[in-house]
């Protein structure tokens, strides 16, 4: 209980610091603030994706349904963080470049991730039977794993050459004020903790459901 409160306090402190304490990047102006929301969400969604895939592979190797709980839970939460990242990124793009969507490489990668998550969850919803669902979803997850490196490296090559983006790389500037990086790291830690906490709830719920069904039998 105390940890939940601590976590919320942590994140709240981070948001406050982001708005009140950390400075603004000159080029970006007030839109810098989105960084504290958008960047951690994007990192966490990538983390969630990796977590889901690893557990999918583990399920196929070991057939322990806990791995499936992890895979499905991470996908659900990853989708949530992905939507957050996409929307916040889109709002930022509007403020910075005038258009909500530009198909620049990062936006495109996040969008593809969103598509894969959505497809994975749609697939799960269409399968009856616990073990069958776990198995087929895990197979799809492993196929998606093959796809991802291509999407991350294809996208810049194909689309970047079509739509050169003068602002690409701006977000990777090394000489950003350390206070900004601190708040960003703080928020990333907070979001990651939030993700794992929610995931643990989901996994426990899955285990309890299975035990309850066994008990009823």
């Amino acid at each position, binding site marked *: 209980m105390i940890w939940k409160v601590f976590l919320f306090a942590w994140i709240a402190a981070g948001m406050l610091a982001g708005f009140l304490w950390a400075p603004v990047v000159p080029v970006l102006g007030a839109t810098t603030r989105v960084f504290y929301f958008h960047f951690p969400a994007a990192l966490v969604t990538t983390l969630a994706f990796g977590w889901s895939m690893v557990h999918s592979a583990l399920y196929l190797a070991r057939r322990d349904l806990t791995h499936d709980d992890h895979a499905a839970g991470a996908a659900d939460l990853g989708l949530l963080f992905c939507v957050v990242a996409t929307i916040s990124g889109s709002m930022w793009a509007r403020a910075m470049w005038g258009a909500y969507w530009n198909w620049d490489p990062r936006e495109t990668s996040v969008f593809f991730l969103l598509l894969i998550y959505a497809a994975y969850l749609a697939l799960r919803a269409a399968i009856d039977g616990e073990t069958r669902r776990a198995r087929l979803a895990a197979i799809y997850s492993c196929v998606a794993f093959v796809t991802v490196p291509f999407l991350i490296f294809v996208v810049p090559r194909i689309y970047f050459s079509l739509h050169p983006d003068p602002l690409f790389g701006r977000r990777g500037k090394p000489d950003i004020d350390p206070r900004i990086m601190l708040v960003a790291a703080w928020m990333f830690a907070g979001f990651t903790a939030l993700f794992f906490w929610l995931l643990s709830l989901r996994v426990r719920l899955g285990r309890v459901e299975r035990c309850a069904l066994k008990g*009823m039998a």
Partner: protein
Amino acid sequence: MSALPAREAVSAVATLSARELTHRYSPRRGLDPVSFDLAGPGVTAVTGPNGSGKSTLLRIVAGLLRPSGGSCVLACEGRELPARARRPAIGLAAPDLSFYEEFTVGENLSFAAEARGLDDPRGRVRESLERVGLLARAADRADALSSGMRQRLRLAFALLHQPPVLLLDEPGSHLDDDGRVMVARLVGEHAERGLVLIATNEEREKTLAGHAIQLRGRGVGDPA
């Protein structure tokens, strides 16, 4: 009736054992844990009320279904066969076994023989059809068969590759008296050289077996 052609002697040592073998489809449906040890040649019946998991057990033995718990070990000629390697050693005839409707009886079996990599596929198909009395219907499309003929086709399919282990799920279903006599004959012939498992509730089929594995619906099954 023509004499059966001489064939290479099949090593008869096939053993099948299960330890706490179980499978759950849902909380209320499945196979309760069962353990047994069988050694061929011989005939064993698998009996039990509806829903006790007879078909499930056969599917697990055939390597088609991965059980949710327990173990099932099949060994032929001393070599243990993991589930994915059981195909050549198993012949299964079950009610849910369907064939390609757009192909003839002969084409279905030829396909099976070719996919299995059998020598002389045509000869084996002929032989198999002869044994079940379907030779006259070899050129009929599978969708034109009556249910009794389909059952004979299933048996022909199971016997096609002379497997050491024969798994029959309700082999007499849809068959007339001649058909049941044929099944008894096939089982008898096969039992001289290999292991036969018959899942059934029919008294006539139970008597073909030397002993039985009894599956109980809501409890633990144990060998008779």
